[in-house]
Every structure is written in structure tokens, then in C-alpha cells.
């Protein structure tokens, strides 16, 4: 049985549908209201508040903390200043992705790493020979994601003493709620302007209440996982064990992925670095990767036609679908789409997919399997640039 997160008393009261999913052993609301689209639109037009406490969180300290994090991450953490946050995957020695998350440098020798899965043992095993301690703070730190164009204005109601206008994308700042400290980072999983708030679990409820209260005039809605899944697909953000398999869960060779293969090549910094997996990734760079992670836009005309044949309007997922489907080109299977969505804001049927490298050029054509009245058909799709949706406000500083 899942248990409640530190915000459970609040989320439980609001979750009218009582639709919950288990997230790392916690109850997580799928959708608070009957229509999850309300929540989806709140993020794109106003603001949404999501309980992300079930993330795993590790605090890494000690005089070699920086060295350890740099050893683990494919990104160059040496470049990360205090107050900065970076996103990075991390790999096993064969250069296969174990997990991905954000790394906040909270002090010269203090980092907080978030992860989708337990990673304590791995991080500890990477720390041999270094003066660095890894502590699992998942339970003691509660976390909220406040996302959407109004997010900043809501926070400004609460935190008047800090300058949120000038907090750049992927940076963090310390704040106080009464006498209690918390950290605010300009991060998120929605591809929109947004913040994540990190606070001691004991003060979680107070924080929720303050944010909800401050958000009243700004269209703030509690946000469930169904809407989140749509938002992250539009943002081109991949999800572990949906869009790729963690090296710690993979059972057969084809299930392992390198960061390059899952579209995170940009987050692999090989120059003069010796992180875990670097050697294998150098070799892969030279060799070229076999697979690539891409976005797809499915042709609406093709969908229309297929459904027209059976006299039905196109039936596409109202929620993001995680049922993987095969992709074809030239009559043979060349990959699979792993997350699919009819994007309400783009009005397009989009998908995240892994394809053979030869089929990964933007604009290239593939066919995606579509089931029409229990029959398997194929619809044309084009490789699209990721992210599908990328508003300026996501990264921009506020106009002063």
C-alpha cells in the first residue's frame, strides 16, 4: 500500500476524483478534477501546483563533494556555481543511463541530487577514495512544483524579501517561510516557467497552504500526474522506464540506452573529463550511436483517413499514452514510440520515440502503428524538433 506524502492531508482533501497512482510508494493524485485538461491548461495559462515529494533526494557533502558529483554526472559539474542547478543523466561504467535528475549546488561542498529511483548505493559506491558523504534525504525533504506563467507572481506574494525577478533559469535561491528555511529553484518538468520548492517535511503543509492562498487570484490549480504527463511530452522531456529503461532495471542488452541514444547527448561533456562511463561514451561518439531519441508529429490527414474508413472521427489519446507502439520505415520496424499525446495547445498528435539513427533527421518520414477499431494500421509521421512546445518565458528573466 502506498503511503501519503507530507502534503497528503492537503492533496487528499482536494482530490475529488480519488484517482491516485503509486509513485515510488506514495499516493500521487492522477487528476484532482474530473477533467484533467483544466489542470493542463492551468499550467499553460496560469499556474499549477504539483506535489513532487516522491522524488528521491540525496544530499552530498564533504570536501570532495564536487569531485564526487562530477565523477557521477555526464555534465561537467565543475562549471556549476553555488546557487546553480544543472540537469544531468548518470551512467554505469558501460555508459548506459542509470537515471537522470537535477543537481543543485547549495554550497561550495553541498549538493542536492534528485532521482527517479533509489540511487544511494550507487552514489556511495562511486565515492570510494573521496571525502564525500551521501545521505538519503528523500523522506525529510518535501517538494512542490509550482509551474506556469503566473508562478513567479504567486511566489512574489509570499516571498517578498528575495528577488525572484532576477533568478535565472536553473538557479536556486534560499528563502524563508516564517522561521523555516526552504530553497526555491527555477526548475520543473513542464517546459514552462516554473519553480520547485524544497522544504523540511514538517513544514510542508504550511507551505502548501501559503502557496494555494497566494495563488487564488492567479488561477492556481492543484496539478495531477495525468496533466503533468501531457506537459512533459510537449516539453520533450523523457521519463525513466517509459521512454528508456534504467541500466539498473534492464534485463537484456537491447534495453540499455546511452545518454546519446536518448537525446541527452547535449548533456554529455566529454572534454577532459573522466566521469563514470566516459570511456564508453567516447567510443560511442566515434562509432556513432545506433539509435536516436526523436519527436514525432503524426499526420492528421492520415489519421483522419484511417478513421474515416470505419466512419469514426479520429480517436486519439486525451491523456498521454504510455503504451509503446512500433514505428516503421520502408516496410521494416525501425523503432518505437513510447509516449504519445494529442497536444491540446498545439493541436497536433505528437510522440516521443526511439528510432534507428538513419531515420532520425528532422523532417524525415516514418510510419506509426495506430489501432483503428481493433485493427492495426499505420499512419505517416514526421520527425520533429524537440521540444514541441518551448515558450520564451520558460528561460527569460522578468521584465523589470
Amino acid at each position, binding site marked *: 500500500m502506498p503511503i501519503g506524502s507530507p502534503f497528503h492531508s492537503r492533496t487528499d482533501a482536494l482530490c475529488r476524483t480519488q484517482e491516485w497512482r503509486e509513485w515510488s510508494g506514495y499516493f500521487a493524485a492522477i487528476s484532482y478534477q474530473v477533467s484533467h485538461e483544466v489542470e493542463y491548461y492551468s499550467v499553460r495559462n496560469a499556474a499549477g501546483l504539483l506535489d513532487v515529494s516522491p522524488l528521491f533526494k540525496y544530499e552530498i557533502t564533504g570536501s570532495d563533494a564536487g569531485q564526487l558529483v562530477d*565523477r557521477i554526472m555526464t555534465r561537467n559539474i565543475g562549471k556549476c556555481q553555488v546557487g546553480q542547478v544543472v540537469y544531468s543523466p548518470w551512467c554505469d*561504467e558501460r555508459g548506459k543511463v542509470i537515471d537522470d535528475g537535477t543537481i543543485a549546488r547549495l554550497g561550495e561542498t553541498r549538493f542536492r541530487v534528485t532521482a527517479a529511483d533509489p540511487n544511494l548505493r550507487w552514489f556511495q*559506491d562511486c565515492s*570510494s577514495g573521496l571525502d564525500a558523504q551521501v545521505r538519503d534525504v528523500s523522506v525529510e525533504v518535501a517538494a512542490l512544483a509550482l509551474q506556469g506563467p503566473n508562478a513567479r507572481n504567486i511566489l512574489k506574494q509570499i516571498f517578498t524579501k528575495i528577488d525572484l525577478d532576477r533568478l535565472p533559469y536553473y538557479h536556486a535561491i534560499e528563502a524563508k517561510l516564517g522561521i523555516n528555511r526552504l530553497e526555491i529553484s527555477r526548475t520543473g518538468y513542464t517546459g514552462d516557467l516554473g519553480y520547485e520548492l524544497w522544504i523540511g517535511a514538517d513544514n510542508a503543509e504550511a507551505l502548501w497552504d501559503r502557496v494555494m492562498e497566494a495563488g487564488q487570484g492567479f488561477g492556481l490549480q492543484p496539478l495531477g500526474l495525468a496533466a503533468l504527463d501531457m506537459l512533459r511530452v510537449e516539453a520533450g522531456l523523457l521519463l525513466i522506464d517509459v521512454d528508456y529503461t534504467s541500466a539498473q532495471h534492464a534485463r537484456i542488452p537491447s534495453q540499455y540506452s546511452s545518454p546519446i541514444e536518448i537525446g541527452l547527448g547535449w548533456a554529455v561533456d566529454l572534454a577532459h573529463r573522466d566521469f*563514470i562511463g566516459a570511456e564508453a561514451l567516447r567510443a560511442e561518439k566515434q562509432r556513432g550511436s545506433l539509435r536516436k531519441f526523436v519527436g514525432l508529429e503524426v499526420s492528421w490527414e492520415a489519421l483522419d483517413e484511417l478513421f474515416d474508413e470505419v466512419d469514426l472521427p479520429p480517436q486519439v489519446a486525451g491523456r498521454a499514452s504510455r503504451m509503446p507502439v512500433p514505428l516503421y520505415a520502408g516496410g521494416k520496424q525501425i523503432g518505437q514510440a513510447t509516449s504519445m499525446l494529442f497536444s491540446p495547445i498545439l493541436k497536433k498528435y505528437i510522440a516521443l520515440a526511439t528510432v534507428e539513427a538513419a531515420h532520425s533527421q528532422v523532417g524525415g518520414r516514418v510510419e506509426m502503428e495506430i489501432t483503428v477499431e481493433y485493427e492495426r494500421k499505420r499512419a505517416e509521421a514526421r520527425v520533429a524538433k524537440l521540444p514541441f512546445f518551448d515558450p520564451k518565458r520558460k528561460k527569460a528573466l522578468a521584465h523589470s
Partner: protein
Amino acid sequence: MSQDFDAIVIGGGHNSLTAVAYLAKAGMKVAVFEQRGLLGGAASTEELFPGFRFNTGLSDAGLLLPDVIDDLGLTAHGLDWLEAPALAFAPLGAEKSLTLWQDLGRTTEELGQHSKSDAQVFARYTQQNAAFGALLQEMAKLAPPSLQYKPLPLLLAWAKVAIRARRLGGRRMMEFMRVLPMGAARYLDEWFESVALKGLLGAVSVSGLLQGPRAAGTAFMLLYQQMGSTGGYMAMKTAQGGVGAVSAALASAAGSYGAEIHTGVRVAHILSENGKALGVELVDGSQVLAKVVLSGAEVRHTLVDLVGASKLAPSVMRRLRALKLRGSTASVHLALSGLPKFSTSDNDNERLTGDIVICPSLDYAEQAYDDAKYGRFSARPILIARIPSLLDSTLAPDGEHTLSITLRYAPYHLRGSDWGNEKERLGDLAVKVLSEHAPGLKKLIKQRKVITPLDYERDYGLTEGSMMHGQMSLDQLVMMRPVPGFVGYRTPIEGLYINGAGAHPGGGVTGAPGRNAARQVLKEI
């Protein structure tokens, strides 16, 4: 970068010296650095007290590969053997004793007094062990093949061994495979009925193991200790001047081929860059560079302390951490004003020329182990003692003697106490137990030195006091040695090789890891 040497060898144990001699003989420019003031490592002969020279670790060189002696001409370099008529003597109390002799007939005769049937089968037992031991010795000369390392010549060499095994006959070959993973206790139970005989023979089956004689795989150790011998007890050879003479001869041979040998010089780091070994840094901060580095020091020390944990992949660290060192042997060295009289030995000193073994039964040994399991040293330990001065007058002043006792089990990790507290208590215990059979012993003691597993770590470089550089349990043999995934005497650091007891075939004064590693290096560069 200029290199000072073709090869640097860390540690001056006999295996390192063997490697050095082979490399130098092949024309390489080689230097060896030993931290201690003298060579020999776990098989050294040292003057602990003025005029008294002791074998401070292993005292016997019976396992030394004949190939090493011949290839390096050790006889010409001063290695000489002394004749010891007795293999092992077990005082049994109440004027009874049991002695195993070099001469099989004499052993059988003596055994007849204990058990007719044991006397009858003993010859067959020694034959079988000799055959199995010979096979093991063949295997000891080859690098273990593995999934990551299977060059054709090596596979052919192993195929030859397999054919040799096949030539024992199908039945014998099956028996070989059946026996190796057995407990020594069960193996001995299958052969013999005399409790005393089984205790005596079983004593060496737990050499370097934190396991009792019932443990699966101790039959392997029983046979390993008999590689190249026929006596049914343990390969035994006494070097003139003490076991340290082996290393002295090796050093002399190496020197004659031009190798540099430095003692009293501790290696502080192995220099490496991008996963490649460059040389070593000595404690005084000076750096010595070479094409390859070999280490005869314990493998975890070599990699974790000398190379540095932060240079090793997590999976390598996991394997090194999982390495079971399990040091559990201590020794007690006594300078004696005269020869002790064993109540049972009818004053015939001949019996005392081999091992003196206190291990009256297999259950005794098993119970000794039970204590160690819970982090205590054995209340009734297994003792294997020697009086080398009996055969070799150079070791002690006239009329006086040296007695060295190897004691099991003395676990490195004590619970609720530490070796600082327990050290002399252990010495007292060893003397007390031996005195039960040699009542006058205490009065003869002029000086005493106890060497605990902690001392072996601090002073002899044996991590956790592990005399085999990793216990030789079934899970740490052949391709699993020194740790799984290290193949062909190599390490994950390119150009760094392991040539000590941590590598196949393992511990004892065999010279095999040193020889094999040197041959591997010569093949590769």
C-alpha cells in the same frame, strides 16, 4: 617521458623476487622496492633476538616449484636443503603420540598402533593425494583462462592438463572433481578411523582460511599443501639457514642478472594517468618511472592504497571490497635455552624435526574455528610448531633453540577487544597449550615474540593479516583470483600486474604467481 626502468616490482616477498629474476634474466632492466629492512615477506628469517634467527612467517619451502629452482639456478645461488626425517609429530597426551615420517614404511608401522585399517589404506591415500597434488601443480603453472582472457596457446596448455587428468583414468578424474569441493573432514572421514590421525592430517586443511575443516573446499587446501609431495601430510622442505634463504637465493640470482634490489624503501603510490601505470612514488617523494609495474604486495593494498580508490571504477571497488582476506593466523616465537622435552617423544628428537602439531581431532579444529566465527581467538587453538634449530645450528647459539608456533584461529577482527589487549594473552595461551605436552617448556623460554594478524598487516604488509593475500576458499581460486575479472595477472590499470600470492595459484612459497606474472609481462611487451 623518460623511463628509469623497464619494470618496477613492488615488495620483496619471494614471489616478487621470482618475478624480478625471470624479468632480469630475460634482459629487462628491473628494480624492486621492499618496505622492510629485509627480503622474504611472509617467508622471512629474522634475528628477533641476538643470536636467535626465526622464520617469522611460513617456515617451510616444500611447495617451491622445481621449475623456479631450475630456471633460476637457485642451487648455485646458495639454496640448500636439509634432511628432516619426520614430517609431523602429534603429541596426544598420556604418553601417546603419532608421527608421520618421510619414510612411508615407518609411518605405516607407527599408524598400525593406532588403527590397522588406517595403516592399510595410508599408502593408497598418499598415492591419490600425490596424483591430485601433481595435477594441481601443473595448474599452478598456468594463468587461469577466463571469458575475457582465452588466448589459444593458454587454452591448449589447459587442455594438456585436462588430458593429463583424463589419464588418471575416468574414475580417478571424477574423484578429483568430487574431492576438491569437499570438506577436508569428510574426505578424511572417508579414508580413516583414527581420530588423532584425522586431526593431524586435517590441521593444514585450514591454512590461511577462516573456516573449519568441515567447510566445503578445505579438501582442496589439504591437497594444495601437498603439491609436488608424496608423504600424505604436506610438501616439506627445510632450507639451510631458514626459509629466508629462498628469498636470498632468488635475490642473488636476480642480482646476477642485473636487477636492482632496494630494501627499506616503501612505495607510497603507484603513478597512473588515464588508467595507465607510469611508475611509482616512494615514501620520500621521489618518483621512479617504468614501462610496467608489478606488485607482489597484497592486491587490495596495491589498488586501493597505492593506485587510489578514486581511480577505480565502482564495480572494481565492489569486487575489491568483497575480497575475503580473513587473516586468522598468528605466530609465537620463542628463544629457548634448551630443547623442550615432549612427554611423549621418548626423548627421540628425530620426531621433532618436522612439524609439531596440536590438533587432536577434527572436532577440536572445528571448535577452534567456532570461537573465531564470533570474533574471539580460539580458546583451544590449533598449533603447528617447529624447532628449526634442531636441524640447523646456524639459527641459534650452541645448545640453545628457536621454536616458532603458528596458531589458528586468531581472527584479525576481534569483537569487543583489540589486538593491543589480546596480544600477550595469545602468547600465554600458545605456550600453555604447548606446555601441556612439553611440561618444561616455560622454564626454557628466554625471550618471546608474538606476531598477531594486526602485526602482520602493519609490519609485513599483509592486509588484514591475510597470509595468502586473500583466503583460498573455493570462491577465490583460479579465474576468481585475485578478484573476478582481473585476468592474466593484469589489473584494470594498464601496465600494472599482480605477481604475489593474491594471484593464481595463491599462497605458500611456490614462486608460481611470480613466475607466471613475469612470463605474462614478457609475452606482452
